[in-house]
């Protein structure tokens, strides 16, 4: 084939054409499809076309290589200019106009000529739809015309900066575009670049409504989303009427104008979409327009557009409801029935696309994702957190960054494009904004919400041993103080507490433990229920009342430590049972056991009379009354007969204060035992102090928790200051008691000590036995409850016999 010399313009033109026809980028064009259409568009007789093909050698080769293609084009030009087809005419004919192809080529050619010749007398008119060029990467190789166009486009663009929305013109435009796009393959061209359609687009876009449809198939390959020229026209956008004006003009404009305009737009498009990958990107003008529209509905850019308003708005686009529904599904990213700015822009963009004939994607394109509207960022970042950082380099407004944080956690798992965004963990945190159905499932796991408030609730009063009650009281105090602190360990415990209370295990002092911790400082009793024994042991050792002061036998787990006032009675009872110092020691521990009141006092003196322990023991078993009575005590205070009596009084006081609630079965005994116990060891010193304090305790209406008394009994150190405290608290009685002389007690210490310890143990035994029985009872109750619940469940269960 002879060499072919092409002018620069021809070169470019042919190159573009070749690229267009070279759909498979194989550098050779099969003699079918676009090439044929192209030749057909040249409006040459078929035989001429055949001749051309022969001449260029395509028939020999079976395909159009680049050179063949160029030759063919040149021959077309030759033929179109009426010259005979001669091989030699390829190079001989000078000034041959570029081959003209009907419709597209024609206008393209005319555009070229227009560019060269006419000045841009073009109003900034956007053409109608300008379909993107067929996957053309070499668009940039556009001819000089592009450059020239660009100069004009800049000016043009200034005139037509905002996206053209031509509501009024939509009807004419839509069918126009529709026709063009009807043949376009759907969907699959998303990857086609928006940019650089080049001149070829212009002609296509200009395809007059009545133009031959042949052009359509040629460009059928393109169906990327519309450019900014394709503005959805909503019937009620008067502000855009100015833009609309352009629309009708563009529709009816002559090719020159349109070509320029289209070139303008194409250049614009090309410029704006830097990457060819994402046809769904929103350009600046588009985005600005969307934002403006958003503002008309919702002035706050960070706010939402409710569903109804959005429905109204988008219904104006006259798209079928089904499609609008689908668009909504795509764009409402967090499925909350409202549109944020990003979502709104995405929806608007989709509507625009649809109006221009592009099929809706099945999934939301990445570029339309609410937080990724960023031209430069073509990769989706599956970050559901606040999107603030996604500011488009194109200078988007800050609205894209808005990405409602509260909505983000609710990214619906239904969005298949974001499988990894299934933030179940994030969503667990309640998002107050999102009403997505995610919440529906989440509630499953919250069927029994651990409501700390309920947990903090006052522990269920259980008929408990004194210790338990005391524990509860202590816990109450603790919860009260810790209520504000959600992380308080107590709050963690409380959920257990009601159940535990229900379980009514007085031994379950788990909650109580935390409570008692508060008291642990003063109380040696700060142990787990399981450690009650050890506590008791501690206490016993602390009490030091036992004369031997050897490690006292580890007392059985004792509820004593948690004696409340109510428990005092029990303690009293227990004390009364175990006479002597044992009781004294025991009584010392039970916090709530106030010294045995008058009955004990009444018996006390009798008991005390016999100084020896046996007498005490005997009396402890006999004294029945429990309620401490101040007057009795006061009577006792008069009792100075025995040194022991003083001790007894002391013990009584303590017993009273400790075990007010306790049955006063063994008041005097306990008192005596207390006294005896006190007689041993350090109690002596404390006696006077203890006496007044205990007396004071007895007199006080049980208000001071038994604890102080108990503490007093615990250890010398503890007791002493406590006694002093109690002393301070006591009033008149203290004075009364003070009258009592200090009582020397050193009679039969050893024997008494032993007996006291025996009594203590016995008392503890009885207390524990009682506790056990109570627990058993509670267990029975709970079992009964359970049975009843099960019955109810059976009744309520739907028929599942199948």
């Amino acid at each position, binding site marked *: 084939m002879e060499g072919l010399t092409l002018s620069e313009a021809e070169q470019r033109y042919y190159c573009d054409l070749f690229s267009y026809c070279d759909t498979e980028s194989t550098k050779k064009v099969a003699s079918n499809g676009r090439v044929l259409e192209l030749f057909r568009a040249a409006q040459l007789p078929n035989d001429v076309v055949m001749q051309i093909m022969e001449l260029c050698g395509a028939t020999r080769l079976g395909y159009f290589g680049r050179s063949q293609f160029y030759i063919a084009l040149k021959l077309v030009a030759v033929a179109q200019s009426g010259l005979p087809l001669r091989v030699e005419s390829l190079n001989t004919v000078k000034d041959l106009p570029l081959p003209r192809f009907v419709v597209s080529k024609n206008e393209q050619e005319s555009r070229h000529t227009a560019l060269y010749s006419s000045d841009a007398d073009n109003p900034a008119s956007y053409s109608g739809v300008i379909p993107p060029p067929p996957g053309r990467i070499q668009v940039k190789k556009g001819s000089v015309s592009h450059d020239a166009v660009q100069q004009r486009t800049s000016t043009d663009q200034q005139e037509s900066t905002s996206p053209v929305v031509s509501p009024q013109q939509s009807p004419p435009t839509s069918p126009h575009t529709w026709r063009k796009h009807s043949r376009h393959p759907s969907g699959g061209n998303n990857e086609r670049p928006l940019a650089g359609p080049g001149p070829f687009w212009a002609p296509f876009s200009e395809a007059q409504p009545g133009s031959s449809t042949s052009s359509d198939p040629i460009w059928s390959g393109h169906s990327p989303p519309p450019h900014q020229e394709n503005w959805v026209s909503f019937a009620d956008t008067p502000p855009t009427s100015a833009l609309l004006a352009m629309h009708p003009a563009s529709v009816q404009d002559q090719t020159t104008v349109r070509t320029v305009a289209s070139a303008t737009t194409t250049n614009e498009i090309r410029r704006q979409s830097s990457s060819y990958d994402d046809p769904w990107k929103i350009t600046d003008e588009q985005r600005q327009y969307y934002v403006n529209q958003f503002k008309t509905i919702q002035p706050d850019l960070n706010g939402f557009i409710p*569903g109804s308003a959005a429905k109204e708005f988008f219904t104006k686009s006259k798209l079928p409801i089904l499609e609008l529904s689908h668009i909504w599904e795509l764009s409402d990213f967090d*499925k909350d029935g409202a549109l944020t700015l990003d979502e709104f822009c995405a929806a608007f963009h989709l509507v625009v696309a649809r109006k221009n004939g592009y099929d809706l994607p099945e999934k939301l394109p990445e570029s339309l994702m609410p937080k990724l509207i960023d031209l430069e960022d073509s990769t989706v970042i599956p970050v559901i957190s606040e999107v603030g950082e996604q500011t488009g380099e194109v200078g988007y407004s800050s609205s894209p960054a808005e990405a409602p944080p509260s909505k983000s956690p609710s990214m619906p798992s239904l969005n298949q494009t974001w499988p990894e965004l299934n933030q179940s963990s994030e969503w667990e945190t309640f998002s107050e904004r999102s009403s*997505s159905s995610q919440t*529906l*499932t989440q509630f499953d796991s919250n069927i029994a919400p651990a409501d700390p408030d309920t947990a903090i609730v006052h522990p269920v009063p259980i008929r408990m041993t004194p210790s338990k009650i005391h524990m509860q009281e202590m816990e109450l105090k603790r919860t009260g103080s810790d209520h504000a602190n959600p992380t308080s360990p107590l709050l963690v415990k409380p959920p257990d507490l009601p159940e535990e209370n229900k379980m009514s295990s007085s031994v379950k002092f788990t909650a109580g433990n935390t409570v008692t911790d508060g008291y642990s400082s003063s109380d040696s009793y700060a142990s787990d229920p399981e450690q009650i024994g050890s506590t008791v042991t501690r206490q016993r050792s602390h009490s030091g009342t036992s004369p031997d002061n050897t490690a006292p036998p580890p007392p059985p787990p004792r509820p004593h430590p948690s004696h409340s006032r109510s428990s005092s009675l029990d303690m009293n009872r227990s004390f009364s049972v175990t006479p002597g110092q044992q009781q004294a020691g025991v009584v010392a521990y039970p916090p709530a056991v106030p010294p045995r009141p008058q009955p004990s006092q009444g018996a006390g003196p009798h008991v005390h009379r016999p100084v020896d322990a046996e007498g005490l023991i005997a009396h402890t078993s006999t004294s029945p009354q429990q309620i401490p009575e101040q007057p009795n005590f006061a009577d006792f205070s008069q009792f100075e007969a025995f040194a022991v009596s003083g001790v007894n009084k002391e013990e009584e006081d303590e017993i009273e204060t400790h075990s007010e609630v306790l049955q006063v079965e063994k008041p005097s005994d306990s008192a005596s035992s207390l006294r005896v116990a006190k007689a041993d060891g350090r109690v002596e010193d404390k006696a006077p102090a203890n006496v007044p304090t205990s007396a004071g305790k007895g007199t006080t209406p049980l208000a001071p928790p038994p604890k102080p008394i108990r503490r007093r009994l615990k250890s010398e150190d503890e007791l002493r200051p406590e006694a002093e405290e109690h002393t301070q608290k006591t009033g008149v009685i203290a004075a009364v008691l003070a009258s009592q002389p200090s009582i020397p007690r050193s009679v039969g210490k050893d024997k008494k000590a032993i007996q006291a310890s025996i009594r203590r143990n016995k008392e503890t035994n009885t207390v524990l036995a009682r506790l056990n029985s109570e627990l058993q009872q509670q267990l029975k109750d709970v079992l009964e409850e359970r049975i009843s619940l099960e019955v109810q469940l059976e009744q309520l269960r*739907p028929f*599942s016999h*199948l």
Partner: protein
Amino acid sequence: VLVSIISSPPQNYPLYIRSVPTENELKFHYTVHTSLDVVDEKISAMGKALVDQRELYLGLLYPTEDYKVYGYVTNSKVKFVMVVDSSNTALRDNEIRSMFRKLHNSYTDIMCNPFYNPGDRIHSRAFDNMVNSMMMQVC
């Protein structure tokens, strides 16, 4: 496997029916229709029971020789019915529950769409996709 959503009473017409083996679909339609009685029966049985998620799931409505029917009702008395092959023994109750939960989620998403009028048949593509994928999992 067939999934169907039946609107709230009194209309009780199907808002959505989709089955995977598309043959014999009519038989499934009939099955769903008859299962409505059982659903109503169960609903009325637990009249005063607290309505929480567990209650929404009705469980196995009734088995036949070929298939099992499961039911689920929402708070607005929209019923979901699922028919699965009896041969599909691998399906555990929990899986059925989760399927219903997904259905419910998708259904509420559809409800959020302002373009959807409650009572219309459901044409949502996303919903179809979800249902199809779910049914594929089962089969």
